[in-house]
């Protein structure tokens, strides 16, 4: 039950932000999206999560067309990490994570929700700051709290229903240690066969190291799509990023240098 984009086009005024994107994001894989600034990566995440309307094409979560799903239905099995989230009022870290559970309870959280919050915080190592004020955290700490929130939202598997995680630049603000930690944890989640993970990353080496399926976007179109060695070629990178790379291969690992 993959996430399937078919001829997805987003047009604002006369400008096509996305132009006929067709791609299938499979469960059990790390689906990473790369591309230069303004190539449509965030737009793709927004259109796929129903945050903005598409002009043409379709987005299908398994068998279900996105238009036939309400926000409330979507929120039960699909979580989105956006860029630049901020909080308007003083909230404790665990309260922010608990917001991720809000699609699942009626008025106040139950023991299931507490459980999910606790485990999601453990998973991303933020339990120690559970009682701290979100405002007092650094950018990287906030980002980790938001991972926990997004993961708490889809913590429990639903029988017969895939879970979907859409991540828009999750690695912003993280130091190199946490970047790798996070990608390893994401990889572990991807091993579960009922989670579809789609992430936008900037660092080509990280994409090469962790991406099972990489989509290179350029000017709203898919320039290349496939494994790291298929997508991250000198030719493709020069076309998209206008910079000449050096590419090294070592034990099936691809390294890119400029």
């Amino acid at each position, binding site marked *: 039950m993959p996430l399937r984009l078919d001829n997805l086009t987003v047009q604002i005024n006369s400008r096509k932000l996305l132009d006929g994107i067709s791609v299938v994001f499979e469960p059990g894989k790390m689906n990473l999206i790369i591309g230069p600034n303004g190539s449509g990566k965030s737009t793709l995440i927004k259109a796929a999560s129903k945050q903005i309307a598409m002009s043409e094409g379709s987005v299908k979560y398994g068998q279900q067309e996105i238009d036939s799903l309400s926000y409330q239905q979507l929120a039960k099995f699909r979580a989105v990490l956006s860029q630049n989230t901020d*909080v*308007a*009022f003083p*909230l404790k870290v665990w309260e922010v994570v608990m*917001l*991720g559970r809000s699609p699942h309870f*009626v*008025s106040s959280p139950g023991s299931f929700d*507490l459980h999910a919050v606790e485990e999601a915080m453990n998973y991303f190592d933020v339990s120690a700051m559970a009682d701290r004020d979100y405002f007092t955290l650094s950018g990287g700490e906030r980002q980790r709290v938001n991972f926990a929130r997004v993961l708490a939202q889809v913590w429990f598997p639903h029988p017969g229903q895939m879970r979907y995680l859409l991540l828009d630049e999750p690695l912003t603000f993280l130091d190199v240690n946490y970047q790798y930690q996070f990608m390893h944890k994401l990889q572990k989640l991807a091993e579960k066969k009922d989670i579809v993970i789609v992430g936008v990353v900037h660092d080509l080496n990280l994409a090469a190291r962790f991406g099972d399926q990489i989509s290179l976007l350029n000017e709203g179109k898919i320039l290349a799509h496939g494994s790291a060695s298929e997508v991250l070629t000198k030719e493709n990178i020069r076309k998209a990023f206008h910079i000449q790379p050096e590419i090294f291969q070592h034990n099936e690992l691809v390294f890119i240098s400029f």
Partner: protein
Amino acid sequence: MLQLSRRYTSVWSFLAIVLIVIFLLSLCFGAIVIRPEEVFYSVRNYFSSNPLQLNERIFLDIRLPRAISCVFVGASLAMAGVLMQALFRNPIVEPGLVGTSSGAALGASLYFVLGATFKFNAGVWTLPLAASLGGALATLLVFFLSHRLDGRQSVISLLLTGIAVNAICLSGVGLMSYLARDPQARSITFWNLGTLSGSNWNTAIIVGLSALVCLIIALRFAKELNALAMGESEALHLGVHLGRLKISVIALTVVLVATATAFVGVISFVGLIVPHLLRLIKGSDNRYLLIGSALLGGTLLSLADLAARLMLAPAELPIGIVTSVVGVPVFIFLLRRNQHYL
């Protein structure tokens, strides 16, 4: 073991006890001191249809409905403050600042001066209806004029538009009081300053009903308003139907503020101070804030009314002046402390 839930019952019960104490004090003190046994006798005599003493009459016809109205007006204004702050994602927003109160005052004064001419009449509901209409129009005007094209709400443009619409409404009120004959003009002036001296059992029942019904409905939106604290797009991803939420919350605030304002006039800053105090006590969960603000709003306004009655006794001060004297410094303090929200 992590403590991952909050129990608000103890704070709520504490606030409820304080409210009851202040309520009893406001029953006893005023231009005339009513002793507790007189309260008892008046209730007994009322039900046994014995003739009532003067003090007992004052208690039953004036003091009691006024104290009850005061609690519900305070609750309404404070809840409206919580709702508006959650909706605009900003702790310095207040119904008085975005035109609701002045719009309601304009609607009410239009009714008072022109109502008889246009034969506009719906019984005891006429005044709240006219005020709600005025409040709704003014709030929607502010809301749409300050809406930026990208759909975000800038607080600066919100406040500035609020100032402009407030000015229009208040000059409308001014015009009406200029045109009005003496008894009407007097009531218009009273609205602008806010006073509970005109409240009777009708006021208590109508404002009370509106406050209770709005509280029950508002609690259903508390969860979605919590999610909104993370921003509109995050709320969307958490399953919130934004359009429905916005319209419902604006409708609730308009009903709350307009109903209260119709009877007691413009009382500012209750909606600002109460949520702020509550956040200091125990966080920003809107379920806690809504119930807490109903209790604390009633308490603070009862205190303000007591002060208004006692400071110049046997004359009394308009309550809006008391709340402004306390509220303006708090507003300026919040404005300075929260500069990053603007």
